[in-house]
């Protein structure tokens, strides 16, 4: 057990080694120590439950569509509705995290969307089905609170890993549900003896209970920051309660947030689209039975166990040597390859070839998601939540766009749609070329001479705010993010005050 002391009068012991913001500098997967690792486990489990609920309907569709007399159009629209709610919910969640803290923000959202899952059990028409899928889908905004929470608990050197694992293991729910729901349904239908049209309804209570339980766990067992919850920290003056308009302004005026929102739409958005269409693709093109198609669909989502976390870990690894430029390059390369594989997937005519390409494609596209959130925590300190929300929301916009353009109606066959989607991925990924951090550089340009991390992060606060000391956490973050210069940047002069001569570090 390692004890870390900060130089303030408050004396706190942490199980993990921490930095000056008390964020953990190590990630220990099998620990549940408060507050860092406990926050990790609470966030991925609750996010997992939201994914299970949001994608609980697809594996049971063969029964639901008969019960509710759904047409293919009804099903397609409900699938789009399921991912479109989260577009705005994610931005709202980002704001809520900045203002109220991830603990309250996520437990509130989870409890607010649980009724949609319970009420799925009494849906009686195509429009009711669409509504419950739409509102249940809002719960995917917990992604943002997950990433925000990890960025609050873990230091820059492990933040990619923490974000990648929590995001990836949450996304796992989308694959796991394809196995869980049919299992729960058979237990109810075969063992308890309910009719088909009753059994699927009862089955929905399982994800609903799970979701409610996780909200309780977060509220009672979690805390917002290493030093406590927002409410307490704000009352004691350790944390300043920020203003919504300022937080929002600094997020939407940061062009990097918009670029990442776009590119995330072409890794995560594509992942959601594939979740919705891949089972049908294999069923129709290769004539596998529904059960097999479901297993193939599940394996795409289950790759998240290691591929998204792998992206996050890779991001942290390249950052050690190459800093932020390494993170950006790796993201660009991996997402481009993902697009290429998507193009290829639509062109392959054999079943085994398709499954193989799909699996490799899943690794690259999910790793790109992990790599994206290796960059996001550095775009803004003050508006971390809203930036995370914009990026997350952009992911869902990508899912809506790709489904509407390529997978609706009979304009393109599914395989044509998949290949064209691959082309779109590659085109949209090009914009990463335009991301530039003056203190660290971009893909093709090095950092500006003399610009420091403080210049970048403190620019988010006005002189008046600085006078009142509201910007303290940004100062600490600037120091801690120095490592994003990579090994080369270790000898670059660090200016603590523009008026004093530079000190060589």
């Amino acid at each position, binding site marked *: 057990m390692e004890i870390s002391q900060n130089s303030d009068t408050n004396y706190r012991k942490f199980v993990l080694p921490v930095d000056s913001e008390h964020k953990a500098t190590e990630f220990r997967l099998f620990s549940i120590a408060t507050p860092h690792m406990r926050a990790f486990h609470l966030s991925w489990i609750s996010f997992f439950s939201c994914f299970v609920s949001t994608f609980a309907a697809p594996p049971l569709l063969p029964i639901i569509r008969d019960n509710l007399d759904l047409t293919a159009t009804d099903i397609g629209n409900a699938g789009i509705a399921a991912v479109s709610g989260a577009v705005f919910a994610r931005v709202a969640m980002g704001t809520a995290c900045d203002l109220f803290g991830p603990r309250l923000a996520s437990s509130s959202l989870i409890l607010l969307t649980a009724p949609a899952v319970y009420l799925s*059990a009494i849906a009686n028409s195509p429009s009711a089905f669409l509504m419950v899928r739409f509102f249940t889908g809002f719960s995917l905004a917990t992604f943002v609170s997950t990433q925000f929470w990890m960025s609050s608990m873990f230091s820059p050197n492990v933040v990619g890993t923490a974000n990648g694992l929590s995001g990836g293991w949450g996304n796992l729910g989308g694959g796991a549900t394809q196995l869980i729901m049919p299992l729960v349904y058979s237990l109810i239908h075969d063992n308890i003896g309910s009719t088909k049209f009753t059994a699927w309804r009862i089955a929905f209570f399982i994800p609903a209970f799970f979701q409610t339980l996780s*909200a309780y766990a977060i509220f009672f067992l979690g805390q917002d920051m290493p030093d406590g919850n927002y*409410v307490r920290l704000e009352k004691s003056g350790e944390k300043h309660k920020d203003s919504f308009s300022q937080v929002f302004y600094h997020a939407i005026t940061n062009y990097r947030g918009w670029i990442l929102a776009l590119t995330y739409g072409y890794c995560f958005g594509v992942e959601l689209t594939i979740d919705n269409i891949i089972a049908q693709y294999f069923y129709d093109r290769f004539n596998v039975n529904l059960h097999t198609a479901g297993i193939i669909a599940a394996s795409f989502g289950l790759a998240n166990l290691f591929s998204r976390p792998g992206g996050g870990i890779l991001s942290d690894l390249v950052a050690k040597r190459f800093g932020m430029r390494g993170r950006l390059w790796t993201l660009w390369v991996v997402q481009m390859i993902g697009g290429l594989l998507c193009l290829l997937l639509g062109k392959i005519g054999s079943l085994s070839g398709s499954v193989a390409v799909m699996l490799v494609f899943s690794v690259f596209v999910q790793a790109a998601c992990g790599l994206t959130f290796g960059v996001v925590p550095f775009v803004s300190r003050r508006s971390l939540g809203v930036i995370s929300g914009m990026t997350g929301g952009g992911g869902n916009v990508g899912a809506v766009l790709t489904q509407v353009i390529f997978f609706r109606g009979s304009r393109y066959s599914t395989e044509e749609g998949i290949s064209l989607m691959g082309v779109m991925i590659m085109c949209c990924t090009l914009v990463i070329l335009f991301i530039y951090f003056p203190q660290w550089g971009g893909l093709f340009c090095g950092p500006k001479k003399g610009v420091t991390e403080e210049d970048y992060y403190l620019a988010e606060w006005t002189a008046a705010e600085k006078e009142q000391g509201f910007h303290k956490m940004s100062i600490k973050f600037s120091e801690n993010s120095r490592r994003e210069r990579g090994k080369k940047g270790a000898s670059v002069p660090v200016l603590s005050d523009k008026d004093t001569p530079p000190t060589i570090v």
Partner: protein
Amino acid sequence: MPQSYHQNHPKQTAFSFVLKAGEDQITVTWRFNQTYSAGTDSDYKTVKVKLCYAPISQKDRSWRKTEDRLKKDKTCPHKIVARPYTTSNNSFTWTVEKDIPSGVYFVRAYALNAQDEEVAYGQNTDVHKVNNLFKIQAITGRHVSLDVASVCFSAFSIVSLAGFFYMEKRK
């Protein structure tokens, strides 16, 4: 068609009634169509009577699509009865099962040979599947207990949330 059969219904007008799944019944009778020469039915061994979707219930539902290759055909997924083949006096009364979805239907009987291959069929509607169709109304699958549980747990979630905010404010 080598075979034909007809159905008995309370009334014959299309859609003036709706059969309720789990409650109402269909009586199917079938016999060999004597206009065909004797011996045509020499290899008929069994008869499988099935409930089939009418075109309107197949619209925008590719999982019910009609395909010429019987192996891939999804028009008639619901089995009513299977019987050994006899030339006449075939009749069966079937209660519409609880898992039959709402839709417009007709009935078809396939004659199979000893290798279980379809060799002939007959149906109660015309070749364009326009006449003599009937409607079935599915069960909802809902129960009062489910409705109550659903609403109660939903309310519980919202009340819990209010409780969380109250507890938080008090801190």
